């Protein structure tokens, strides 16, 4: 159950066949107060690196990219109802979607916690 990160600041955590995806704590802090979240319909299939959701803060609208490809099996209505949850709990309750991965090997291309922390230091 390790968490992996993309260079675009999404995190992904695999449990069984299903992976949970959200934006990193760094991402939420850089975005500032999140005011709107747009989530995909269940059943939608996305490729790795494709847009899976939109997050909007007072300063910018940003795409959330799928760190790995798969089918959307669940979305987090709680962040639609209360977007501030993304700020308060980006890497726990503020998750965006759950994906049934089509190729788990895609996770290997992503950063682990140590690599992501090192990446953040370069920004």
């Amino acid at each position, binding site marked *: 159950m390790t968490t992996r990160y993309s260079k675009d600041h*999404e995190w992904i955590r695999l449990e069984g066949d299903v992976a949970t995806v959200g934006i990193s704590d760094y991402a939420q802090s850089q975005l500032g107060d999140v005011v709107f979240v747009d989530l995909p319909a269940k059943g939608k299939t996305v490729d790795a690196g494709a847009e899976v959701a939109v997050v909007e803060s007072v300063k910018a609208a940003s795409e959330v990219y799928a760190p790995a490809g798969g089918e959307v099996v669940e979305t987090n209505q709680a962040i639609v109802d209360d977007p501030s949850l993304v700020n308060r709990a980006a890497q726990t309750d503020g998750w965006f979607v759950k994906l049934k991965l089509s190729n788990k090997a895609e996770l290997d291309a992503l950063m682990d916690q140590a690599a992501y922390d090192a990446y953040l230091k370069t920004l």
Partner: protein
Amino acid sequence: MNRQGRPTTPHAAANSAATGTLTGNRGLQMEEALLFEMGQDGRTGVDLPDAPKVKDRLGGLRRAGKIGLPGLSEPQVIRHFVRLSQKNYSIDAGLYPLGSCTMKHNPRLNEKMARLPGLGDVHPLQPVSTVQGALQVIDTLAGWLKTLTGMPAVAMSPAAGAHGELCGLMAIRAALKARGDVRKRILAPESAHGTNPATAALCGYTVDPIPATADGRVDLEALQAKLGPDVAAIMLTNPNTCGLFERDIKKVADMVHAAGAFFYCDGANFNAIVGKVRPGDLGIDCMHINLHKTFSTPHGGGGPGSGPVVLSDSLKDFVPVPYVVHGKDGLTLVESGDTKSFGRMKSFHGQMGMFIRALAYMMSHGADGLKRVAEDSVLSANYVLASLKDIMSPSFEGPCMHEALFDDRFLKDTGVTTLDFAKAMIDEGYHPMTVYFPLVVHGAMLIEPTESESKDSVDTFVNTLRGLAEKAIAGGENVAMFQAAPQLTPRRRLDETRAARSPVLRWKPGSNGAPIDKAAAE
């Protein structure tokens, strides 16, 4: 995700400043209530006799309650709108350095021409024989645009820049369809105007971002990797939103054409190259031109935009109707017919008032004058860049084109953000520059002084920015000043988060100030 750092709620200090006056006014800056708050039943600007008693035929539809309009006298209404207009900042009030928006002076000669009775009083449904002069204005302006861009055709009707983008992409889509080639992707650099991906999405394309190189230009290797048989077009701004000329633009055009795709150029920054470079010579297939930027017609609340689109040989057949042609009885309009045109984008013929103003601007400058416009706008921006590069942090090595881009490295660890810095400029009497755009640099500040400003004016502006930067870097109690700014405006810093999360979009009686009759307002 982008990487912008920006506070969105007002600092505590911002809420504490009260005027301390009995009226709530700040000197001659009046605290202004809404008309609905000021209005009183029975007050009116005119005395009308009672309506004669007649039998109405409204049956049960006769209005039972009051209509809820505020009762006001004429001087009250005049003062209200004059006071509101005095709160407005405009290019007529001062330097307006909004990057990528080209807030240049709107010459009064343009206004005089637009008000000539033969142009100002015509109606679009008049017979064409009675509006030959107006058609000639459209035709002459079209001729100038084609000459300045080196392109064979122009669509005059798009009503603004983004509408022009839509026109260009619809022409590209029509051209692809005509050759039986369905393509799905549009490439756009990460620094693109937000309207580029929005337009592509509206046309049903998916948008694929192209990364920038370290020097702020399109990464050719990344472009080559993204090009393929499903790419419909690239949308590129030149000069780009970092204020830099895309020096590999001809290579980009060749690569895009080799892949069978079209080259859309966002002409929002044409001001920097007008008269110097013809986009047609760069391999561009279509480009919109913001008459309200490059050609000085009013915008930013002052007037409608206008975004004619020039088209290359490969796209000219698909130009939207209507367009002006030379017929045997003078000028006439093609409004429909058996052309390959993709259709109509706008009622009537486009923003006629803006056509007149833009043409007046072109003709009063002449070809040599327009060249000077580009030169002076680039000179102004480079003067700003050179004057501030030792204290603020330019994002890229100079020289720049018509706008100077700084990022927030000079504010690092000061506690002052780009937003605070911009708000402090308001207290100094300036409209802030564009902030947090383009997204490719952190905490961006994009300054476009335009060619309208005198050297004195730019010097005062530069000295103000230098003074603010010194204050921010010195830190200490200055930081609170920045975080509380603006303090001298009718309203202090707004709570953007609350405004976005729980917007109040409608005034209701009793919600603020004097209540009025509830039944009347509902």
